């Protein structure tokens, strides 16, 4: 049996004063032009960064700072055509940016996700050329991910601005972005592929060192569902079916009925999983079956 695994201002600027170009239909405004303008706003916002749910308010233009430890320039640790993701999105040209605002001990890309200095400097033109070549060869989408791409929102928007207008774009996110980030992303991505990792704040704090997780993620998912196509992912973790998956499934069934849900069962005990006794192995067949029963019992719209 083979399973696909998934474990993830200029001086004086004040974010609330940012003049974010409004969402426009593609018929009236080119996406590339909108993304270009938004990228400038996003880059200026780094001077008092509140792009993710932590809302540190640090000056990332001055250098690496904040809980993500990222500066202003993005690095890329992977850029290739992949078929690991949802069937309706593949093949996808996946661009993975280093750095993340969460600290998931089980992260399958823990090295480059926790360290924004890993990978190579992002060279926009060669990267976009490779993406375009992949699209011409049959890739259906371009996916921007991390780490967490919200951390590098200016760069992500610059990539969007450089891609062909008709590219189907996927924003693969931990759904821990701020309202400011959402406003900058509004109308630019066709699909939000969002994680809902933890069903309660205690597990989120213990495994990913993030406070107030549930509220922030729910806020992002509700917004994304109203502003783009949304696919919610949940990675089943050993020992967390009852505390994490069940409440996630219940909430999705109640608040986002019909939303596409991808239940990922290929947990891989990566990175710092060894720190947690329940995460030192894979998901047992019994737990996997229980997770699927919960999903079906709540009538979730499951996709592969």
């Amino acid at each position, binding site marked *: 049996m083979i399973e696909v695994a998934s*474990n993830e201002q200029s001086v004086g600027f004040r974010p609330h004063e940012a003049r974010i170009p409004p969402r426009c239909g593609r018929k009236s405004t080119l996406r590339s032009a909108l993304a270009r303008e938004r990228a400038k706003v996003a880059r200026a916002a780094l001077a008092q960064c509140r792009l993710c749910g932590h809302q540190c308010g640090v000056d990332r233009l001055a250098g690496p700072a904040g809980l993500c430890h990222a500066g202003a320039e993005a690095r890329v640790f992977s850029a290739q055509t*992949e078929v690991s993701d949802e069937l309706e999105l*593949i093949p996808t040209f996946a661009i993975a940016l280093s750095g993340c605002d969460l600290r998931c001990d089980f992260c399958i890309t823990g090295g480059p996700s926790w360290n924004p200095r890993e990978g190579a400097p992002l060279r926009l033109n060669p990267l976009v050329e490779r993406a375009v070549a992949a699209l011409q060869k049959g890739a259906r989408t371009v996916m921007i991910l991390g780490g967490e791409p919200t951390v590098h929102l200016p760069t992500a928007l610059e990539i969007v601005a450089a891609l062909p207008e008709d590219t189907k774009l996927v924003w693969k996110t931990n759904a821990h972005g701020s309202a400011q980030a959402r406003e900058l992303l509004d109308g630019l991505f066709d699909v939000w592929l969002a994680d809902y990792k933890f069903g309660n704040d205690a597990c989120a704090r213990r495994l990913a060192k993030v406070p107030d997780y549930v509220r922030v993620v729910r806020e992002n998912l509700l917004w994304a569902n109203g502003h783009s196509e949304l696919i919610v992912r949940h990675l089943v973790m050993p020992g967390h079916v009852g505390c994490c998956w069940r409440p996630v499934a219940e909430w999705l069934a109640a608040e986002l009925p019909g939303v596409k849900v991808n239940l990922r069962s290929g947990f891989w005990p990566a990175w710092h999983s060894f720190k947690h006794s329940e995460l030192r192995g894979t998901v047992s067949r019994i737990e996997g079956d229980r997770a699927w029963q919960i999903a079906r019992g709540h009538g979730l719209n499951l996709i592969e």
Partner: protein
Amino acid sequence: MKKQRELSNDSPAPALTTEVLILPDGQILVHNLTPTFAGLLARLNPGCEQIASRITHHAAFHHEFSD
């Protein structure tokens, strides 16, 4: 281990990377599955529906692995 890759004009296209974890019970977990590696897995286990479904979704890329 992933290789460090350069994405500048001065460097060749980076090597593609797929990570594989083979469990004692024979289960195989894969991460960052490329079309080429999907083709390899499909050949190794033609009966695996999960890989087969991914092969059919990238016919244009499948030739990379074909003879």
